[in-house]
C-alpha cells in the first residue's frame, strides 16, 4: 500500500469526521466534487450533510467557521488556494485569532491552505503565507512536510481548541508517498531532526525539506554531514530543537520558499542569535525565494524558488566560512 500526502489529508479529515460529530467541512467545491485537489473526495457521500459547498466567498467562509466554532463545532475550512485566503484574511487575523484572548471562548477552526509553488502556478496560485499568519498572535501555523505529518498534524489541528492555519504544499500532494499512516501523532509544536549531521544545520519546513534533504545528500558525497531540521510548526516555533542542533553543528542555514522579507527564516535566525549566539561558528544564513511575485513560467519559477542545488550551494558556502 502506498499513500500520498494528499491521501493523508483526506484520510485525516475522514477520521476526524468519523470520530467527532462536531467536525464538519466547509469550502468551495468540497462537497460532491471532492475539492479542487480532491482532498475531500467521497467525504460528502460518506458523511452526508457534513461536507458543504460554500459560495465563492472566502470572508464569509471563515466568518461562518468562526461562528460555528463559538457554538462548539469544529469546522475545517478549505481555501481553494492559499492565495485566496487574502480575501478571508480579516476574519482569520481579527476574529479567529483574537476570540480567545478577548472573550475566553476558544475558536477551534482549521483553515487548510493549499500552499506553495508549482510549475506554471504563477503569482496567484503559488504563495506561501505562513509568515503572515504567524505574525498575528492567537494562531497556530502548521507546515507539514511529510505524508505522516500531513495526517497526524491535521488530526492534531482538529483536536486542539485554537485556530490552526494548516499549510499543505501542493507540490507534495501527489508525488510524496509513504507506506502507511502513523498510529501515533507527533505532538504539535515539536520540530524533528529529519537527517542527523554534525557540520551544519539546515532549518527548513514544508516542500523545502525535500530540497534540503537532497542538498544534504549531495553534500554528503564531499564528506560533510548536514543536519536537517524539519520545523513542522512555524508558530509555535520549536527553538529548543533548533538550538540543540546548532549546538552540535555551529552553523545555521535557514531555507524557506516564501518571500524573503520577514519570513520564517528571519524569525529562526533572530531566535538563534538571541539565545544561541555563542553556539555559532559562522554567520547564520538564509535562503528564500526571490523578492518578486512568483513567476508563472516554469523556467523562471525554477530560479525564483530555492532548489536542491541552490540549497547545496548556500550550504557549501556556509561550510567554507
Amino acid at each position, binding site marked *: 500500500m502506498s499513500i500520498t500526502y494528499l491521501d493523508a489529508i483526506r484520510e485525516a479529515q475522514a477520521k476526524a469526521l468519523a470520530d467527532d*460529530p*462536531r467536525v*464538519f467541512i466547509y469550502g468551495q467545491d468540497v462537497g460532491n466534487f471532492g475539492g479542487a485537489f480532491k482532498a475531500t473526495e467521497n467525504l460528502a457521500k460518506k458523511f452526508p*450533510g*457534513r461536507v458543504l459547498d*460554500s*459560495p465563492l*466567498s*472566502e*470572508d*464569509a*467562509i*471563515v*466568518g*461562518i*467557521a*468562526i*461562528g*460555528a*466554532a*463559538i*457554538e*462548539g*463545532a469544529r*469546522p475545517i475550512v478549505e481555501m481553494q488556494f492559499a492565495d485566496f485566503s487574502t480575501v478571508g484574511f*480579516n*476574519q482569520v487575523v*481579527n*476574529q479567529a*485569532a*483574537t*476570540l*480567545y*484572548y*478577548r*472573550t*475566553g*471562548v*476558544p475558536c477551534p477552526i482549521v483553515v487548510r491552505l493549499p500552499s506553495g509553488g508549482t510549475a506554471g502556478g504563477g503569482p496567484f496560485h503559488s504563495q506561501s503565507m505562513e509568515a503572515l499568519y504567524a505574525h498575528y*498572535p*492567537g*494562531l*497556530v501555523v502548521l507546515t507539514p512536510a511529510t505524508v505522516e505529518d500531513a495526517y497526524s498534524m491535521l488530526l492534531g489541528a482538529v483536536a*486542539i*481548541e*485554537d485556530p490552526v492555519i494548516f499549510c499543505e504544499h501542493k507540490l507534495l500532494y501527489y508525488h510524496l508517498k509513504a507506506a502507511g499512516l502513523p498510529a501515533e501523532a507527533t505532538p*504539535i*509544536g515539536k520540530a524533528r531532526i529529519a537527517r542527523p549531521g554534525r557540520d551544519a544545520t539546515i532549518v527548513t519546513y514544508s516542500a523545502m525539506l525535500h530540497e534540503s534533504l537532497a542538498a544534504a545528500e549531495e553534500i554528503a558525497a564531499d564528506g560533510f554531514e548536514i543536519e536537517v531540521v524539519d520545523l513542522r*510548526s512555524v*508558530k*509555535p*516555533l520549536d*527553538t529548543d530543537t533548533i538550538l540543540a542542533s546548532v549546538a552540535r553543528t555551529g552553523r545555521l542555514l535557514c531555507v524557506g520558499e516564501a518571500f524573503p522579507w520577514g519570513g520564517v527564516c528571519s524569525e529562526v535566525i533572530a*531566535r538563534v542569535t*538571541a*539565545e544561541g549566539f555563542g553556539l555559532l561558528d559562522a554567520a547564520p544564513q538564509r535562503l528564500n525565494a526571490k523578492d518578486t511575485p512568483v513567476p508563472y513560467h516554469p523556467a523562471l519559477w525554477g530560479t525564483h524558488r530555492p532548489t536542491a542545488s541552490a540549497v547545496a550551494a548556500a550550504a557549501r558556502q556556509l561550510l567554507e566560512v
Partner: protein
Amino acid sequence: MSEVVKARHSAEPGDASENRKGREIVKAYRIMLAARVLEEKLAALYRAGKIKGGVFLGRGQEALSVSVGIHLRKGDIFAPLIRDQAGRMAFGDTILDTLRTYLGSSLGSMRGRDGNIHRGRPREGYYAMISHLGAMIPTVAGGLLARRLRGESGMVGATCLGDGGTSTGAFHEGLNAAAVEELPLVVAVANNQYAYSTPNSRQFACADLVDRAIGYGVAGHKVDGTDLAACLDVVGGAIAAARAGGGPQLIVADLLRLVGHGEHDDARYIDPELRRKNIGRDCLAVAGAFVIERGWATAEELAAWRDEVDTEVDDTANRVMREPEPDPAEEDWCAISTRSIEDNFA
C-alpha cells in the same frame, strides 16, 4: 402607527390584544429608558475623563435596537453593533457589566482586554463584535449553521448594522451565504443616514437599502425607526418569520442618530433639515408620549422609572469606580488556550 399592529393581532379580542401590546411596549420603553439613562451617564463620565476607550452611543436608535433584543429568547444568538445598548439590555446585558467595561474594571466580562461596544459573552449567545463592520453577519450565520448541524431548530440569530456597514464585502458575502443555507438570520440595518460623516448619497445609489433583499432572495422589511410600536411589530414579525423557517430577514429602519458618531464628535455634518423631519424625532420621547396617550402609564410613572434607573446607574458607577483595574503583572499574556504549545519569545 397602531394600524398595523392592530391588524396583526386581530384574532384576539380587542381588549386583550390592547393589553398585551401595552405590556410589551411598556417593557420595551423601560429598557430604552434604561439604555438612554445609562448612555447619558457614559457621556458624562466621558466628559469627566473617567472612561477607558471610546464612547459610541445609540441615542435615537433605541426603538429599533430594543425591538431586536426583546424578541430574542434564551438560546438565540445576538451580535449587537455599535449603537445597541438598548438591544443588549433587552437580551440580558446589565448596567453593571456595561459600566465595568467602560470604566475599565477588571471584573468586567472582557477583563480589560477588550471593552465597551466590543463586549459580549459568546457562550451565552451574546457575541462580542469585532470592529470590522459586517464581520458579525457570517459569524452569526455560522453559529446558526452549527446549531442546525447538531439538530437544533427554532433558534434565531440576529445582528445589527449601520447604513455604512452595508457597503462592506462582509455584509454581501455573509448575507448571501446565509440565504443559500436558508438560515434563521435577522439583519437589522439602522439606516441613520450617515456613516460617521458620510451621507447616504456617498454610500449607495439604490432607491432604498431594503431593495437589496431581493438580490439575496431574502425577505425585506421597512420600518420607521422612530416609532417603537412599529419597530416592535416589524422586527417581531421578521424574527418570528426567521424562527418559523422563513430564512434570512433584512430589516431596514430609517432613523437619525441624535448624537455624534462618538462622544468626541459634534455631528455638525448632519443636515439640520433632517433633524426637523419625522426621521429626526427622538424615539424615546415619541414612545413615552404614546405610552401616556394610550393610558398604559402616566407621566409621573415615566418620571419615576427614570429616577429609578438614574439611581441604579449612579450607584453602580460609584461601586464600579472602586473596583480594581486589571493588573498587567497578573496577566498571563497568552493568546491561545492550549498553553502547552505557547510560543516563547526570549
